[in-house]
């Protein structure tokens, strides 16, 4: 496979390390009342669609960026790639964020 790195262009997927469902960037609040259940679901019940999947890849043999890749698990077609950090910065800020 080739991943179209937003900063570096097409790179062989073998330069990357795969993690999984992109929702792993949304770590629950440890102080919440339902933290035990929230962490259970967060870590174990990941999206596993036969179709379009948003997923995390780490460019270990490259620029060390974590990417969110939108890829179809039936065809392996990749339709979007962005820096995970950008996606993470877009989400609503929580008590866990720095400087608060």
């Amino acid at each position, binding site marked *: 496979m080739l991943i179209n790195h937003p900063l570096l262009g097409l790179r062989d997927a073998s330069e990357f390390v795969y993690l999984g469902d992109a929702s792993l960037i949304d770590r629950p609040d440890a102080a919440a009342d339902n933290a035990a259940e929230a962490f259970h679901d967060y870590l174990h019940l990941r999206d596993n669609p036969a179709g379009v999947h948003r997923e995390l890849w780490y460019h270990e043999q*490259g620029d060390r960026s974590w990417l969110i890749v939108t890829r179809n698990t039936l065809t392996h077609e990749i339709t979007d790639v962005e820096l995970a950090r950008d996606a993470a910065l877009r989400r609503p800020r929580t008590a866990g964020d720095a400087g608060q």
Partner: protein
Amino acid sequence: MENACVADMTLSANYPLDGLDELIEDTRLSAVENLDIVSIALPRILGAEEARQTRDALEDNLKSSFGLQLTDVGMRSSNPDKDSLLGLQPGLWFLVTGKQSSEPARALKTVVRDTAYVTDQSDSWAILDIAGPHAQAALERICSVDIDQSAVDATRVVRTSMEHLSVILERPETERFRLYSPVSSARSFQHMVSVSLQNVV
């Protein structure tokens, strides 16, 4: 109580590629030693205006001391003294310079002051130059990234893996490539490049 080094000894430097200089047919493979390499990380600042100011300040510092510009990731800038700045990660560069100091990070810190975090990388890398008409063909055997002149020229830097080794590649001249790979596996690195060259000449 203070102590002092009572041993009447100094430590001499050893390089793993040990001055390698090999001509295979018309293409030369040579070790590059005595370069200072320091990573430069731009502090992460949330406010856009403030972030830009920090970046500009860092760039001004590098420009005035080295004449080098901050580049995007995957891009390289260089000066007539053959110092170069390699954009390796978002917000992180390697400064590669022939100016040798005993503590390169400390020396650079006086240049960048509080506009960047610096870390010495000079001893982390084994460096090989491969120069000559067979250089590109040799690298085609180990590098999955397109290194044709149309894709990689002197303004580019590529970090990738070759034969299970992490490698930084630049092409300062059309027929000369420079490769950096972790120093601990320098022997395997040398073997990899040398076999590639032997397989294509």
